[in-house]
C-alpha cells in the first residue's frame, strides 16, 4: 500500500503546531496503525530526521494509551477498536490520512500526538477510597450480587480511560468516563458506603478540570472502543440527583 500521512507536529505545550506530510510506500495492509507509524518513524530516523511522538503501550486494545484522532475520528474509522487494533486494510491504497492529537482544554499537548491525560487520574483520586472489611478473609460468595448488576458493573468497568469520548464529543465532555467509573462502584454493594460523596466529588473534579457539559449527542458511545453505553450517563445523573436530595 501507498499512503500519504499528515501528522500533527508540535514541539511542546507552548509552541504552535502544524501538520507535516510524510508519504509512505510499501505499507502492508496487515500492519496495525501503530506498526505503520513505527515503520514511517524508522524511515525518518534513517534519514536523520526526528520521529514523531505518539502514546502506545499494550498494543492489544486494553490499555487505552493510543490516543490518536485519525481522519476525523477517535481511534480511526472502525467501530469498537483502539488505534492499535486498527489495521491498514481499513484504509484505501493511496489515501491521505490525517493524524491529530486529542483536542480538549484539559488535554494539553505534550509533544506531537501525545496529550497530558492526568486530569483523569485527578478525577479518579477525587472519588476517594472504598471501605473494605479488614480481619480474616471473607467467604468468596459472602456478598450476593444479582447477575444483571454484576454484568452491568463489569461492562462499566471495561472503560480503559482512553479519552476517545472527550476527543469525539463536540463539548469535550468527560461524562462517559466519569459515569462508567461511578457506575462500576454504584452497581456493586461494595461501593455503597461512599456512594454519595463519590459521585459529588467526581463530578466536581470533572468540572474543575474544564471539561465541557454533556448534551447527549451520543458521540461518546459511538466512538468508545469498549462500546460503553450512555445509559451509564443516565445512571450518573440519577446518582447525582439522589446524592443531592439525600
Amino acid at each position, binding site marked *: 500500500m501507498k499512503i500519504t500521512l499528515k501528522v500533527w507536529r508540535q514541539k511542546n505545550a507552548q509552541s504552535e503546531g502544524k*501538520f507535516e506530510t510524510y508519504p509512505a510506500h510499501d505499507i502492508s495492509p496487515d500492519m496495525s496503525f501503530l506498526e505503520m507509524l513505527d515503520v514511517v518513524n524508522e524511515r525518518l530516523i534513517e534519514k536523520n530526521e526526528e520521529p514523531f511522538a505518539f502514546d502506545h503501550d499494550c498494543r492489544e486494545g486494553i490499555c487505552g494509551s493510543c490516543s490518536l484522532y485519525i481522519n476525523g*475520528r477517535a481511534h480511526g474509522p472502525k467501530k469498537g477498536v483502539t488505534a492499535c487494533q486498527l489495521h491498514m486494510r481499513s484504509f484505501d491504497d493511496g489515501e491521505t490520512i490525517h493524524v491529530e492529537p486529542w*483536542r*480538549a482544554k484539559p488535554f494539553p499537548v505534550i509533544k506531537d500526538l501525545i496529550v497530558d491525560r492526568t486530569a483523569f487520574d485527578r478525577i479518579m483520586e477525587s472519588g476517594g477510597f472504598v471501605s473494605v472489611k479488614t480481619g480474616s478473609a471473607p467467604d468468596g460468595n459472602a456478598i450476593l450480587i444479582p447477575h444483571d448488576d454484576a454484568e452491568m458493573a463489569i461492562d462499566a468497568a471495561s472503560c480503559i480511560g482512553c479519552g476517545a469520548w472527550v476527543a469525539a464529543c*463536540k463539548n469535550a*465532555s468527560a461524562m462517559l468516563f466519569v459515569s462508567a467509573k461511578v457506575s462500576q462502584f454504584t452497581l456493586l454493594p461494595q461501593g455503597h458506603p461512599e456512594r454519595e460523596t463519590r459521585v459529588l466529588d467526581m463530578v466536581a473534579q470533572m468540572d474543575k478540570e474544564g471539561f465541557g457539559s454533556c448534551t447527549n449527542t451520543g458521540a461518546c458511545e459511538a466512538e468508545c472502543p469498549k462500546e460503553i453505553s450512555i445509559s451509564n450517563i443516565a445512571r450518573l*445523573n440519577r446518582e447525582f*440527583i439522589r446524592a*443531592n436530595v439525600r
Partner: protein
Amino acid sequence: MGWLSKTFTSSVGKKLIMALTGLFLISFLIVHLSGNFLLLRNDNGAAFFQYSEFMKTNPVILVMEVVLFLGFIIHAFSGFRLALENKKARPVGYAVNRPSENSSVFSRSMVWTGSIVFIFLVIHLKSFFVDHKVASWMGVTHEETLFQAVVSAFQNPVYTWFYVAAMVLLGFHLNHGFQSAFQTLGLNHKKYTPLIKKLGLIFSIVVPLLFAYVPLYFLLIYKTTGGN
C-alpha cells in the same frame, strides 16, 4: 455556596435545568396548539375570541404566564451559557473532523435551532402578544380583534413562510431535545427508552406540522367571508 446553587451550577445540574425547563416548554406547546385549532373553526373567530379573552383575564393563566416567561428565559439563557462554556472546552479544533459518523446533526445544532426559534418567538410575541395583551393591560383598546390580527398577519406570505421555517427548526430542536431531556433526568432503561425515543420523533414531526398548518391555512385556503 449553598448546596442548591452548588447543585445547579455543576455540569450535571446545568443539564437538569435544561431538561426540566425543556419539558415544561414542551407541555406548553401542547396547550398552545390546542388553542390555535380554535382558529380553524368556521365562526369568524368567535371561539378564538372567547379563548383569547379567557387567556387575558384568568388569574391561573396570568400566573402561569409569568412562570412560562421565566421558563423560556432560563432555558434560552442557560442554553447559550452552556454552548459558550462547551466551546471553551476545546480551544483548538480538529483539522479533519467527521462528527456525522457518531452523532445526529440535530443533536449538534441545538444552539442554532434554538437561537432561530428564539428570534421567531420575539417576533411572534410582538405580533400576537405585545400588540394585544400588553395594550389591553395598559387600557389601550384595539380596534381589531386578535383573530383579525392573526388573519392579516398570516395572509402575508413572508410572515407565514418564516413561521413555517421556524416550525421546521423547532422540529429539529425537539427531535433531540425531547428524548435528551429524559436521559438527563436519568430516565434511561431498556424497557421504556425506545418508547421515549419513538414518542419524541413523532412529537417533533407532528406538533410543528400542526403549528405550521394554521398559518398555511390562512395563507392558502382561508377566504375572507365579508364583514369584519
